[in-house]
C-alpha cells in the first residue's frame, strides 16, 4: 500500500487525501451537528447514493434516465412495507382497512421479513431496470427516445401507485411507523446509528462505482458514451453493458430509497414523480457528470441550498432552480467539478504564456 502511494503522481495523492478527509468529516459530523441537522445531512447522503448511480449511467455511459425516482421509490416502498407490517403487529395496515381490504395482499406477505425487504429494495429496482433496458437497448432505442420512455415510466408508476390506493396507500403513501427492530426511529441514538450506516453505505457505493469505472467494464462504458457504433464494430455488445450499468444504477437508487424512508419516515408517490426524478439529474449535472466525487458533492450542496432557501422563499427557489438548469447545461456542461478543471486550465495557460516569453522552443 505504502509502495503504491509512493509511486502515485502527486495529484492522485492529494485527491486521495481529500477523500479521506471528507470521509473523516462525515464520520465526525454527529459530534457537532444538532439532531435536526444530522437528520437532514443523512437524507442528503442518501440522495448522494442516487447521484452516484445516475452518474454511472449518465456521466459514464451517456444515457440519461429520468426514471430514477421510480427506482428510488420502489426501494423506499419495500422498506416502508416492512416497517408498516412491523408496526401493525399482525393486523392489517390501517389504510388497507379503510379501503375495505380484509386480507393482506399476497405481494405484501414476504415483506414481513426484514431480510426480504432489504433484498427486494435493491433487487426489484435493478430487475425492473434490467427488463426495461433489455427491451430498449437491444433494439438500439437510445438517446432521447430512451429518456422519454423512462419519463413515461415515472408517470405510469405514479398513476398506478396513486390509483391502487388499497395496496399502496394512494397519495398519502405508506407512513405511520416508528420502530426498526424494536428501536425507536425517532430517538437520537437510532438516528445517529442510521446516519453512520448511511455514511458507510455511501462510501461502499462510492468504492463500488469507483471500481466499476476504473475497470475494463468502465472503459467500455465510456467508449459506448463516446461512440457506440465503434464499440459495436470492435465486437462488443453495447446493449449488455448498458443494461448492466442501468441495472446497477437502479439498484443504488433503491438502496438510497430504503435509507430515505428510515431517515424521513414516509414514502409517497410525490417523492418519485417527474419533478424529483429530474431534480436528481440536476444534482449530477451541477456536481459534474463523469466524476463520482462531483455527483456526491452536487447532491449534498444542492439539497443544502434547497433546504436553506426553499422554506423561506419557495418562489425564488423554483426560479433559481430553473435558471440553474439553464446556466449549468449551457455554460458548465461539466458542472462544478469541470469548473475547477477550467480554472486550472486557465491558470496553466497563463503560466504557459509566461513561460513562452522566457524560453523559445526551437520548433516555433
Amino acid at each position: 500500500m505504502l509502495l503504491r502511494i509512493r509511486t502515485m503522481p502527486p495529484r492522485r495523492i492529494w485527491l486521495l487525501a481529500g477523500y479521506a478527509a471528507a470521509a473523516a468529516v462525515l464520520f465526525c459530523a454527529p459530534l457537532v451537528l444538532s439532531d435536526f441537522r444530522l437528520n437532514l445531512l443523512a437524507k442528503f447522503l442518501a440522495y448522494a447514493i442516487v447521484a452516484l448511480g445516475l452518474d454511472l449511467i449518465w456521466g459514464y455511459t451517456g444515457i440519461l434516465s429520468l426514471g430514477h425516482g421510480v427506482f428510488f421509490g420502489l426501494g423506499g416502498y419495500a422498506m416502508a412495507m416492512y416497517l408498516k407490517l412491523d408496526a401493525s403487529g399482525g393486523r392489517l395496515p390501517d389504510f388497507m382497512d379503510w379501503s375495505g381490504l380484509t386480507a393482506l395482499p399476497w405481494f405484501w406477505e414476504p415483506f414481513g421479513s426484514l431480510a426480504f425487504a432489504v433484498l427486494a429494495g435493491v433487487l426489484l429496482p435493478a430487475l425492473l431496470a434490467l427488463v426495461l433496458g433489455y427491451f430498449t437497448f437491444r433494439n438500439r432505442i437510445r438517446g432521447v427516445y430512451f429518456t422519454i420512455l423512462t419519463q413515461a415510466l415515472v408517470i405510469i408508476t405514479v398513476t398506478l401507485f396513486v390509483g391502487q390506493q388499497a395496496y399502496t396507500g394512494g397519495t398519502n403513501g405508506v407512513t405511520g411507523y416508528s420502530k426498526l427492530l424494536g428501536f425507536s426511529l425517532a430517538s437520537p441514538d437510532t438516528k445517529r446509528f442510521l446516519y453512520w450506516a448511511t455514511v458507510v453505505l455511501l462510501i461502499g457505493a462510492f468504492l463500488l462505482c469507483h471500481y466499476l469505472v476504473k475497470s475494463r467494464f468502465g472503459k467500455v462504458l465510456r467508449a459506448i458514451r463516446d461512440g457506440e457504433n465503434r464499440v459495436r464494430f470492435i465486437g462488443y455488445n453495447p446493449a449488455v453493458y448498458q443494461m448492466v450499468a442501468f441495472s446497477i444504477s437502479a439498484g443504488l437508487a433503491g438502496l438510497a430509497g430504503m435509507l430515505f424512508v428510515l431517515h424521513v419516515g414516509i414514502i409517497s408517490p410525490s417523492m418519485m414523480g417527474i419533478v424529483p426524478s429530474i431534480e436528481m439529474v440536476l444534482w449530477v449535472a451541477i456536481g459534474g457528470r463523469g466524476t463520482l466525487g462531483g455527483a456526491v458533492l452536487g447532491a449534498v450542496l444542492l439539497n443544502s441550498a434547497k433546504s436553506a432557501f426553499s422554506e423561506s422563499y419557495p418562489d425564488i427557489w423554483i426560479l433559481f432552480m430553473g435558471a440553474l438548469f439553464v446556466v449549468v447545461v449551457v455554460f458548465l456542461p461539466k458542472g462544478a467539478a469541470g469548473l475547477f478543471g477550467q480554472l486550472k486550465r486557465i491558470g496553466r495557460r497563463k503560466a504557459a504564456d509566461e513561460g513562452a516569453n522566457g524560453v523559445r522552443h526551437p520548433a516555433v
Partner: protein
Amino acid sequence: MDMIVLQLFNGISVSSILLLIALGLAITFGLMKVINMAHGELIMIGAYTAYVVQNLFASYMPDEAFGWYFALAIPASFGVAFVFGLVLEMGLIRFLYGRPLDSLLATWGVGLMLQQIARSIFGAPNVGVTSPEWLNGGMTVFGGVVLPYKRLFIIGLVLLCLFAMYLYIYRSHSGRRMRAVMQNREMAACLGISTRRVDAVTFAIGSGIAGIAGCALTLIGPIGPSIGTYYIVDAFMVVVLGGVGKLVGTVFGALGIGMSNTLFEYWTTASLGKVLVFLCIVAFLQWKPMGLVAMRSRSLDN
C-alpha cells in the same frame, strides 16, 4: 352500441388534443433534434392568453360580442406563443443544437421558470374560462348519444390546423426549405438556405401550435400553471410512437395512443389503463424501433 359510439368519440376527442400538442413537438424534434420540455409551458401561455382575451372582452366589449371572443383568442394564443418560441429559440435553443439531452434539461429549467412566473402573475389556483354560448350543448345522434359541441369544435380546429400544416410543409416554399433542412442540413446549407432562419421560424411555428392547443384546452376545463405538464409526456410518447419526420406518423401515433388510452381505461381502471398503454408502446417499439413512420437515412449515427 351507444357505448361503443361514445367510446370511439371520446377516443377521437382525446387523440385530437394529443395530436395538436404533439404536432409542434414533432416538428421541432424532427427538424432540430431538440427536445423542448417547455412545450407544455407554451401550451400554458396559450391557455392564459385565451383567459386574458376573455377578460378583456368581458370588461371592454358589449355583452352581445362576448360570445365571439374565442374567434380572437385562437389567433392571439398562436401569436403570443409564436413570439415566445422565437425568443426562446434565439436566446437559448440555438446554443444547444446537436445536444438533444442537454436541450431537454435546459428547456425543462425554462419551463419551471415560466410556471413560477405564471403562478406569480395569475395565482396558483386554477382559473376558469367561460366558453362561448354557442359551444354549449351537444349534437344528438341516433339513440341517446350526445356529442358535445365543444369536443366537436376542437376536433374541427385540429383538422384545420393539420390541413394548414400540410399546406405549409408540403405546398409552400418555406415548407420546402424546412423539409430540405430536415433531411440533409449540410446539403441544404450548401444550396444557400439559411438554416438558422429556418430553425428559428420552425421552432416558433411549433410553439404557436402549442399556443392553439392551450387555447383549445380552455374549453375542456379550468387552466392552471401546471396544465402543460399533464399532457407533455403523453405528447412525447406520440412522437416516439409515430416516428419523426412525417405528419402521417404523428397523426397515427396520436390516434393510436388516444384510442388505446380510452379503451383500456374503459375496460380496466384509469391507472391500469396507462400501464397497458405503456406496455403496448414498448412492445410496438420492439417491432419498429424508429416508430411508425421514420425518415429514411443512410447515416449510421442519428
